[in-house]
């Protein structure tokens, strides 16, 4: 798959992956672009990989981890979001999605990563292990614990899930 085709097909999923991994929505685009730029340099390797998503997500995870460890990002966080002036349309599905994101935000980065790669990007345990730089067994145990942690959020188990 050529680079342009891959980006056209997977960019939205990658941006969403970045947010689910814990990146701020305002930074997610930048993280994805940084990751794709790194991949572009060695796109031949990505093409040769069994699963391009696994390779790209590995780079994306590293980009986000690095950004998270940077002490100063040049931006001041604010507790309250400013008014957007536009009320988004919120159906039940959207509210469920927000509830899941809130729950994810309470999990550890390890758990967020393994849940996102396994169940959003649908990577195999082996690919997830390669992307996270851990052993497949670690992915298995970490996934198990992460499912318990996510399941402990009662609001995700209610019928309307929000």
């Amino acid at each position, binding site marked *: 798959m050529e680079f342009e085709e891959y980006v056209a097909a997977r960019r939205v999923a990658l*941006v969403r*992956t970045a947010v689910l991994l814990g990146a701020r929505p305002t930074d*997610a685009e930048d993280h994805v672009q940084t990751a794709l*730029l*790194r991949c572009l*340099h060695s796109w031949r390797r990505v093409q040769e990989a069994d699963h391009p998503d696994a390779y790209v997500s590995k780079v994306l995870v590293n980009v986000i981890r690095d950004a998270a460890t940077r002490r100063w990002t040049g931006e001041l966080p604010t507790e309250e979001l400013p008014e957007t002036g536009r009320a988004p349309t919120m159906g039940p599905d959207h509210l469920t*999605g927000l509830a899941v*994101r809130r729950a994810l935000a309470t999990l550890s980065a390890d758990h967020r990563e393994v849940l996102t790669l396994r169940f959003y990007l649908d990577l195999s345990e082996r690919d997830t292990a390669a992307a996270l730089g851990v052993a497949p067994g670690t992915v298995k145990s970490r996934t198990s614990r992460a499912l318990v942690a*996510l399941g*402990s959020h009662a609001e995700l188990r209610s019928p309307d899930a929000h």
Partner: protein
Amino acid sequence: MPTDPLTDDQARDLLHHAARSIDVAPSGPIVTSPKTWRRWAPALAAAVVVVIIGVSATVVGGGGSPAPVGPSTPATVPSVLGLTTTDAVARLEAAGLEVRLAPVVVCQPPGIALATLPGAGAPHPVNGRVDLSYNDDESRIDLDCSGALPERMWAVVAMLNGGPAVDLADRAARAQVEDVEAQVSGLLDTPGVTITKALTPCDDVASSDPSSEAFRITTPDDACGLQVVIERSGRALAAIRVSEQPPAVAPIMPILTGLPEGEARSAAGTVVDPAQVFVAYREAGCGASGRVAEQRPTTGRRLTSGDSVALTVDVVTAGCGEAPGVSDAERELARSLIGLAETDGTGDEADLAEQVELFVGHAPAGTVTDLDADAVDTWRGCPPSGGYSAFSCPVRLLGGVQSDAVNDVETQVRGEAVPLPCGGGLAAAGVPQRFAEMDSFFLTPPDKLLTCASTYRLQVFVDASSRIAALDLVLSEP
């Protein structure tokens, strides 16, 4: 309170719900050269045009036609601005291009070609594909479109591009043209948009012949010519210019950093006058690459006539001696490894074994595969036994080399290990025997920086195929 874990399917369903709640703005066309990407504001809108009536001062009694405006060469992207999407696709395909539709949300009439990438006049892209932007009308309801270009203006723009003729023979039509000019003038407050000339005093445009030349309308006696030149920067309007000559395609500064000097000179000579390519040499130690280290202007800048290009080339420091005990092949490996670290993985590829073993303080700390090697961040690890480096675990194996670059000092290539001032023994007790039997060399900071705070010693093991097989980083005891 213990709870049952979610099933895989439940988790998958929840994660996908979460993902769908994340709005992702549409992207601009994909740029495949490795340069910084920019978010493209939907207010692309800012369109267009203009006009002028150039006086073709030809001829006394000669009735000669004004010098014809050269058509786009077959190898350039034709202009389709203002055409219907269908006509635009047909024209681009007729030019041998594969068209990919790129809907955008802007305040412009639906179904009209707003821009292409590459832009009109640019050489055909290598892959033969061009992105065609048009208004995604269904999504514009939330936009404030009070400043949009009126629909009738697009008719003029389309005509200038060979679309259906608009009658310019009367004052009303003339007013339309002036309206276009006014619209363009309104864009002058937009950064990057300039207009170099207004309408000429040629009062009446008696007729139009849009089929004769794109961008040019002539009057019956050829006394007045109307010519529009549109320049773009990416997808945004960059300038509107009036010219008697065909528009020159402004070249874009290529990536020269990292190229050998000769190649860089040649490449620069294709975008500016070769006499305007200036090279400065910078002594960069014994491992200097002889390649371009800096370039001005930066990559992606659009160049104009008379621009010059300045290159800085790293050269070997005068009098630089050969490091004892280091072969030419090892020196080349060292150079590539240092380059990998200094460029954060974007430089030349180092010659690596399929799997490079990492050691910290002689203890195993991980592996890097050839697949990961470009991501310098993966060159890190923690020795399982902890030890003195555990306080800063994971340790970046190439961190010391990167620090040398940041501190603008030359990483030293040594044939023999040097003792570190605050500990860090010479005996590689934990390194497997198969590595100990390999050739190796050492990277360290210069002697003056062999201090407790900043020193390191990176032993590089080289296998029988002259590839890097393992690294062993030793730091001073804290």
